[in-house]
């Protein structure tokens, strides 16, 4: 097939295909911005002088202190995780109809390789459009935001540019990665001329083993402090590694645990259901509990970090209070130097968490709408036989909320527990920070409200997808 034919086939599609392409481009754009921001922070030159010399041209300590820049860049790269989850969820949008289109290609004589190439090209081109647009936004934003204040200091590192090869790697590498990921994902489905066959067999019902992962993660966090104490605070890199692996395990445990929770919620709901809405939701939950894991992965990961951040903030707050008290006792008064740097950093972390929750909610919306659209024939038939749309809407709400509420609580709890264990006690027998119940409640409620908003938006699609016309579709 010539490149022109390939391109034409890749771009031929309906509205859902257009939506998928747009979302793929948007995710690529966001990922590019995050990646370029990280590169920019890393491109700041270390000022001459001793190790404590700061880059005086910036307002923010995260940029001023060379030692903090690595962490800042890492946090920015971490922000791409929910973005990538969004990209993955977009890739599934309209997948059934695209798969059918690909099967039609196979029937028309295309080889499996050619079919895969068509899909790769679609993703690759869409991502390239996104990354190029992202680069343009980045370069434009640099110009617009380059506003030194009265002291000549900058809010953002708009005075440095990452090396061109690094920027090119982001702009060109992301689309290649995305295309490669598409090829891998397509390997899971076999596009035979007769249609699409999922290769993977049905997985059994989830077991509570993710609890073990969570337990190990919390345990890892618990041992870090005592070991550090025992070794008299000797800087141990491997200890940090243990903590990281533990946290990663706990995050995976919570995400996989969501599948188990969904299964359990579905079975409980099935037993208790009196109304059809609850029954429908219960059956869908037990039918594919892993759908919850996939759908809420980014949200739950963000909430674990939120819970951990709450623990760190409580600890920093207590430390600041204690210092102030000591200063007062020593007669320095309240106006002594007040180091709120850590608390400011926590504000940034909270902001990043909020951004991650918002992106996760967008991904959730994509998945939800995709689920509704792909089931439109069943829904239209139900409405035609007199099932009220409200019943279908309620069943969708049940299906989302029944697993997400407990999963959110667990994610916050696990995150807080790990954070609390890692911050440890300031000194043996010292005052302990109170559990920041208020902040945790706000985070949990915020996440659930975001989910509710998403459900409300998704249900709006019900009206158009349950129109009689859908009965004509096969």
């Amino acid at each position, binding site marked *: 097939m010539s490149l022109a034919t390939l391109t034409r086939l890749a771009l031929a599609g309906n509205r859902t295909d257009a939506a998928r392409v747009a979302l793929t481009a948007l995710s690529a754009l966001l990922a590019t911005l995050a990646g370029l921001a990280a590169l920019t922070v890393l491109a700041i030159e270390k000022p001459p002088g001793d190790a404590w010399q700061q880059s005086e041209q910036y307002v923010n300590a995260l940029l001023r202190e060379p030692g903090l820049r690595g962490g800042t860049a890492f946090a920015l790269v971490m922000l791409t995780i929910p973005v990538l989850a969004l990209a993955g969820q977009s890739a599934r949008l309209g997948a059934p109809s695209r798969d059918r289109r690909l099967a039609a290609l196979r029937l028309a004589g295309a080889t499996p390789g050619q079919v895969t190439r068509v899909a790769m090209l679609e993703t690759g081109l869409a991502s390239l459009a996104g990354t190029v647009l992202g680069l343009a936004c980045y370069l434009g934003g640099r110009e617009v935001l380059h506003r030194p204040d009265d002291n000549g200091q900058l809010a953002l590192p708009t005075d440095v540019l990452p090396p061109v090869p690094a920027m090119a790697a982001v702009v060109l590498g992301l689309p290649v990665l995305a295309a490669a990921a598409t090829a891998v994902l397509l390997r899971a489905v076999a596009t035979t001329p007769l249609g699409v066959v999922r290769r993977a067999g049905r997985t059994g019902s989830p077991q509570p083993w993710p609890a073990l992962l969570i337990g190990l993660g919390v345990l890892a966090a618990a041992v870090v402090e005592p070991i550090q104490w025992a070794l008299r605070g000797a800087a141990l890199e491997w200890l940090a590694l243990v903590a990281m692996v533990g946290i990663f395990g706990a995050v995976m445990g919570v995400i996989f645990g969501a599948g188990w929770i969904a299964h359990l919620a579905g079975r409980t709901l099935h037993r208790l259901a009196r109304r*059809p809405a609850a*029954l429908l939701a219960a*059956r869908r939950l037990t039918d594919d509990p892993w759908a919850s894991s996939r759908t809420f992965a980014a949200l739950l990961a963000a909430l674990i970090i939120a819970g951990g951040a709450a623990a760190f903030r409580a600890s920093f707050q207590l430390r600041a209070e204690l210092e102030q008290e000591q200063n007062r006792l020593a007669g320095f008064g309240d106006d002594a130097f007040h180091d709120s740097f850590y608390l400011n950093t926590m504000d940034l972390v909270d902001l990043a968490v909020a951004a991650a929750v918002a992106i996760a909610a967008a991904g959730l919306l994509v998945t939800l709408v995709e689920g509704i659209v792909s089931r439109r024939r*069943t829904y239209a*038939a139900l409405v*035609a*036989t*007199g*099932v009220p749309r409200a019943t279908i809407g309620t069943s969708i709400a049940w299906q989302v909320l029944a697993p997400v509420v407990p999963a959110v609580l667990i994610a916050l709890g696990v995150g807080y527990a790990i954070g609390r264990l890692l911050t440890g006690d300031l000194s043996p027998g010292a005052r302990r920070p109170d559990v920041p119940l208020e902040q945790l409640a706000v985070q949990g409620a915020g996440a659930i409200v975001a989910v509710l908003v998403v459900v409300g938006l998704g249900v709006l699609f019900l009206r158009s997808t349950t129109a009689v016309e859908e*009965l004509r579709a096969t």
Partner: protein
Amino acid sequence: MTQLQARGLVKSYGPTPALRGITLDIDEGEIVAVTGPSGCGKSTLLHCLAGILRPDAGEVSWRGHRLDTWSEAARSRLRRTDFGVLFQFGQLVPELTAAENVALPLLLAGTGRRAARTAALTWLERLSVAECADVRPGEMSGGQQQRCATARALVTEPRVLFADEPTGALDTLAGEQVLTQLVRLAREHRTSVVLVTHEPRIAAYADREVVLRDGVIDHTGLGLDAPLAGGSR
């Protein structure tokens, strides 16, 4: 006694006219076959009669009440109580078992779960698919699925059953078996049936055949001689 009455039904989709003035009465317990070439407006007529679509002009009356002026909610309620609706395929909820699918309309009406299941099992039995009660649609044959769908359409003991090519996706033998059962049950319960089909042979099950052509009634005939009448035109 006339239960359902259509007067001068007109319906178009944009510039495409689908119905161009249809007048039709359906009596209690009567089985009416609607036939005609593809695209002549059979499904559109059925959707208008069942209150799924609103006609552009004309009226549909159910026991003397103007159905086409009712709200969507009221028509929806009518469809799950006095009307039963049956399509060609794809109307069963894939995650629910056959018994749960059949019980669904009863649950919507507020029947308790146990009573709904008992009734569902009875109807599955009547359609000779009792063995599928705890099986999901995906694991049944096409014929079994349509029997379950028929059981679901009849479980509320509707006064009118609307069926749009209910056996269109089945082979001749399976289709015939489903249809004979449907007709027998409808006769037992004095349920009126509006049966859309494009196979004249199937129309032989009906009391009356209404043949559409280009959105108008071409002619009507008695079910049994309809194939001949249809063929002579």
